[in-house]
């Protein structure tokens, strides 16, 4: 992949939408890779016992999966220099699986530093699940 050039980017440019599936197996893989073994992300009976509607995705899975959209857009995941979000709503993952939809828009550009700020909007079943999700990437 080649890194996106500053000259090819304008404020208001849009990214996606990209649809990303998520299953219970995805969450087990994420739990093992991240070290977050909270059973609300794997065990339906446990999740319901603490008042959740079903198994929910790790907020950090959702953040990580959404982040791939901006990494792919810039062309090198190592160019993501800042990334932050609020976790506003859970992604519920029934046994049949679910999906998130990620869209981005370029909010600002700094020509001197080649930095672009991208705001990501991530929804599940039409509901926004991440709030104020901003990534800063270094373009070429």
């Amino acid at each position, binding site marked *: *992949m080649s890194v996106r050039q500053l000259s090819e980017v304008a404020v208001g440019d849009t990214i996606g939408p990209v649809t*990303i599936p998520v299953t219970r197996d*995805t969450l087990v*893989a*994420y739990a*093992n*890779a*991240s*070290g*977050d073994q909270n059973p609300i992300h794997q065990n339906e009976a446990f999740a319901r016992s603490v008042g959740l509607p079903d198994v929910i995705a790790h*907020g*950090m*899975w959702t*953040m*990580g*999966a959404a*982040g*791939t959209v901006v*990494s*792919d857009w810039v062309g*090198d*995941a*190592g160019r*993501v*220099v*800042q*990334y*932050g*979000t*609020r*976790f506003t709503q859970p992604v519920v993952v029934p046994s049949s699986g679910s999906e998130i939809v990620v869209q981005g828009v370029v909010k600002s550009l700094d020509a001197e530093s080649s930095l672009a700020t991208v705001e990501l909007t991530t929804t599940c079943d039409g509901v926004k699940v991440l709030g104020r999700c901003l990534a800063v990437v270094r373009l070429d």
Partner: protein
Amino acid sequence: MAVNTDFVGRTYPPSGPYAVDAALVASFAAAVGATDPVHTDAEVARAAGYADVIAPPTMAVRFAQMTDRVYVTDPEAGIDYSRVVHGEQRFVHHRPITAGDEVLGSVTVDQARPAGGHAMIITRTELTTTGGEALATCVSTMVVRGGGE
């Protein structure tokens, strides 16, 4: 259990080192659906200027959460971890975490206060290599449900 506000400003001694290898990076990348070959192909990563395959940006949380455990499980801190909900997460990356790195983490408690019947905690975790090279600053906001009494 009420969160202990005396912990604000406290910095714990570094924890780790946590080893980063290509298999761990590949498993994290697969779990979040990151298909950028810089995570899995050392030749591609080197051509992009890295020493080896690099971690996806949010993989820093693995080391940050391992580091934060010393605080959130401190009996004096007053945190019921079974009631913790992740509210917000921010990363500033100084350079990508790379296979071969030995990561140290140091957590500072930026905030610990009651908030409307709950408690709000903000940790700032600095990840560095054992050689002292800055990797990432990870800021995590956690809400302890019903933890503010």
